[in-house]
């Protein structure tokens, strides 16, 4: 099978999976089998591209649609996209296992619709990852938004509908009013001959245009601003409102989409456009991205502070996600090769850690019907596996060795020092350093009390009348797997770092 076919199949298989799931809707066991097989095959397809990409091979593919003649829908696999695609498709496997346990354990309605929407989201995530030009990226970005709306509004009550409105409102407004405007603006610069193309290229599209003055720094900076805030999925404040709202969805959705696929699509796109559209060197030369360091740093601190005061476990995790996403943005905004690598590594580290945490939260909900942090006293004794995994995830988020979160934070610090070395001591680097230190403390502040409650506080009187054990086996299996991977990546950091290095290599 040629690589080109593989790329297309990586999107085609999930879509075929959707059709199969809908067709098998009446037989739940067959339907779930279809989900599992689709997930495995998709991952295998994406993973099979890895050796060629690491070897620096160019893999390109195209789709015969001409939505706009002259603007092709084209794909090119490069290391950064590979990282995102791998993370998304790999984690879909445990999530599918988990989702089966969760949906059945909870006796949810509309399960076919639920399982049918997932593969569409995956297909569009892969499309974003492998996109070759800004148009293709925008296209799949929008499909991802729409395919996840039915998952957010799954419950169908007024609360879910309200959240659905916020979700769609923020994501679509930002992407249409800001991102599409930037895309069209860049395209119209291309049509007027000011820039050479709209494909992602190393060094960015504007290198010569800015140096010759064809594109003024002001326009360049405005485009960058439009694009960054147009990527609402990256949840840089004040575009973050949709993420807490999305927490009304069933936990597998929050775990996989709103900790991995959707939010990582946002930050992945940020890194991708910083590297391949605007260009690290051009941004550094014009200084138009300095504000992003502050925006990201501010988001990290403010979101962490809000997380401290959330009693609802999923809401606390959501604000933690907002803050962690901005680490990736911060890495991109620091504009050094190592900080870009740190951003990549953090995409991986956060994905594995946060999905574990959400899995645990959902597991607690299914087994004990508890949603608030204050209800979790002593639950660690009843659900040792779940809370054990939770602890691993939490420690990884804080950045404690021996977990992968430490690797990413360490790399980010290296990025900061490299930034100082490259550009002299800028005030941005100092700020970034302060943010990283402070936020680590805050992370500890909102995660450790949960662990403490679970293991060291006696269960409340009321709980003794409601005995419960662990949640269903598929869920426990899934969350132990992701927790295990979090540990594994520290023991074997080469897996993550070599990918990061490849990204760094390709990007700068």
């Amino acid at each position: 099978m040629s690589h080109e076919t593989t790329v297309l199949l990586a999107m085609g298989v999930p879509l075929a999976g959707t059709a199969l799931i809908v067709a098998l809707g009446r037989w739940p066991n067959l339907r779930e089998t279809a989900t599992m097989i689709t997930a495995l095959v998709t991952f295998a397809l994406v993973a099979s591209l890895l050796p060629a990409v690491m070897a620096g091979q160019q893999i390109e593919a195209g789709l015969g649609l001409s939505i706009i003649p002259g603007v092709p829908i084209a794909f090119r696999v490069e290391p950064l996209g590979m990282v995102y695609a791998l993370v998304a498709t790999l984690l879909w496997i445990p999530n599918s296992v988990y989702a089966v346990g969760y949906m059945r354990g909870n006796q949810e309605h509309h399960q076919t619709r639920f399982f049918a929407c997932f593969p569409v989201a995956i297909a569009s995530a892969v499309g974003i990852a492998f996109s070759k030009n800004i148009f293709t990226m925008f296209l799949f970005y929008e499909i991802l938004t729409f395919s996840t709306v039915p998952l957010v509004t799954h419950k169908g009550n007024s609360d879910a509908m309200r959240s659905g409105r916020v979700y769609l409102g923020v994501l679509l407004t930002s992407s249409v009013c800001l991102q599409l405007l930037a895309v069209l603006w860049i395209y119209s610069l291309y049509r007027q001959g000011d820039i050479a193309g709209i494909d992602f290229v190393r060094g960015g599209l504007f290198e010569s245009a800015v140096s010759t003055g064809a594109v003024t720094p002001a326009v360049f900076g405005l485009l960058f601003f439009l694009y960054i805030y147009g990527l609402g999925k990256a949840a840089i404040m004040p575009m973050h409102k949709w993420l807490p709202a999305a927490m009304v969805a069933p936990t597998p959705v929050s775990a996989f989409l709103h900790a991995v696929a959707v939010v990582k699509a946002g930050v992945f796109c940020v890194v991708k456009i910083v590297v391949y559209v605007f260009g690290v060197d051009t941004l550094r030369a014009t200084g138009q991205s300095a504000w992003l360091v502050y925006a990201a740093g501010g988001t990290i601190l403010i979101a962490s502070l809000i997380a401290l005061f959330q009693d609802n476990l999923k809401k606390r995790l959501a604000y933690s996600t907002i803050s962690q996403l901005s680490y990736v943005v911060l890495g991109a905004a620091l504009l050094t090769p190592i900080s870009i690598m740190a951003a990549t590594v953090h995409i991986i580290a956060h994905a594995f850690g946060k999905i574990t945490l959400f899995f645990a939260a959902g597991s607690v909900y299914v087994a004990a019907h508890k949603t608030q942090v204050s209800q979790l006293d002593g639950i660690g004794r009843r659900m040792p596996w779940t809370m054990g995994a939770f602890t691993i995830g939490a420690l990884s988020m804080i950045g404690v060795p021996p977990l992968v979160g430490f690797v990413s934070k360490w790399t980010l610090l290296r990025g900061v020092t490299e930034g100082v070395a490259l550009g002299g001591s800028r005030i941005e680097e100092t700020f970034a350093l302060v943010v990283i230190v402070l936020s680590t403390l805050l992370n500890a502040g909102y995660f450790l009390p949960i662990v403490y409650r679970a293991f060291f506080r006696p269960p409340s009187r009321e709980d003794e009348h409601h005995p419960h054990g662990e949640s269903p086996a598929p869920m426990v299996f899934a969350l132990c797997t992701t927790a295990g991977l979090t540990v594994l990546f520290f023991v074997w950091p080469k897996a993550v770092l070599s990918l990061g290095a490849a990204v760094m290599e390709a990007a700068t």
Partner: protein
Amino acid sequence: MDFVHQHLPALVVALPLVTGLVTAMVGRRGAGWWIAMGSSAAVFALCAQLLANVAGGGSQSVTYLLGNWPIPYGIGLVVDPLNAAVLATVALIGCVVTLYARRSMAQEVPEDRSHFFWALWQFCQVGLLGITITGDAFNFYVLLEISSLSTYTLIAMGKGRDRRALTAAINYLVIGSIGACFYLLGVAYLYMVTGSLNMADIHARLQDIFATWGTDAPVYRKTVIAGFAFIMVGLSLKLALFPLHLWLPNAYTYAPAAVTALLASTATKVGAYGFIRVIYTVVGPDFAWRYLHSDYILMICAMMAILGGSLMAIRQVNVKKLLAYSSIGQIGYIALGIASDNVYGLQAAIIHIFNHALTKGAMFMAVGCVLYRVGGVRLEHLRGLGRKMPLTMAAFTIGGLGLIGVPMTAGFVSKWYLVGGTLERGWMGAAGVVLVGSVLALVYTWRCIESIYFGKREEGAPEVREAPLSMLVPTLLLAVASLYFGMDSRLTSDISAQAAHFLLGVRP
């Protein structure tokens, strides 16, 4: 066959005129629909052939002499890339809606009036097709009145369901007649200075007059400007360009369902065509845009239409009225494309004439299906219909996504070109307004979608079934077409590019 080929342009108008008369005379007992259907299918075939001829013949305009009287003495029918496209659109919609109208009309119009209905139905199309194909300014007026007069009556036929159809009709009659009179008055002014009624001839003679304006002795300056102003105001009334749109919402809301679908997708589109025709081929953009700067007036009206129409749509509870207000906004898109005076913008206008005809046609027809089965089209009537009438509602949803301009729907293609055109013109604000308009469209569409898919039908409400096949098929046809032209816009882009190049007199 030779005869047909030779007289294609005349047959397009003559055929429905004759069959319309025949229908009025002998169309009792159900024969009316058959005649109308046969005639509109034949007209569609003729128009498709015309379009194919033009597309094959390069960017040429072909003049057909009625009765072989030479231009400018006789009336000439002109076929060029622009009006061939509009003709095909009108004929296509006419054909599909006629198919649809049989059942829906039978429910709304008393049987002893049905032959009149079908006669007027055809006269309305005679007028619209005639306006599009004629090359004579006075003939344009006559055909405008033929279409308008039959439209007033068709709208009034909704009186059986709601008596407000009558007041809507007389309102439209008064406003429409004044608009037509303004147009007639404008033509008189142009006739005073050129002594010709043939559009191409007027254009040629105006050039001599314009040539004197740069000198010390400008002639007929005020007369030409006044004539142009009267024509524009008259056509704006027909087009329902904000703020001259007041007749439209009630007329669309209370007309029979099929009539609304026909009007919404053809009548205003022909008005837009008249706009383009007068500006680009009669007075010329040099006079209208670069001498008078009326493009700014048009731009401001268009922006107000987009914002005003969409904001009003958000407040409606009657879905037909909601769509009517949305049409006012969409007309703003077309007007903005016309005003932007470059290839991309004009392409946007022409593509949107077609795409919006498909989209709105599908939506109004879907609403008509609801009216047929449920008996009302307030938002509460839509609740829970996603399960009861899945196909109809799918068509409605596809249309709604098209109004928002979601990628892969026809609306996105229009929006892409439109924003591209306004950006090229340097109208940043207008580009922003277009994108804000999409978000507003999201708001009103989402209100419907929430009702359809997440609302619950009231307890004890009568059981409803899917719409009858003869209504469902045409509805789905347009919906699927709008998806198709959203995914493969080669055809629409090519034709519109040809037309735009023709109008601007530039080589592709």
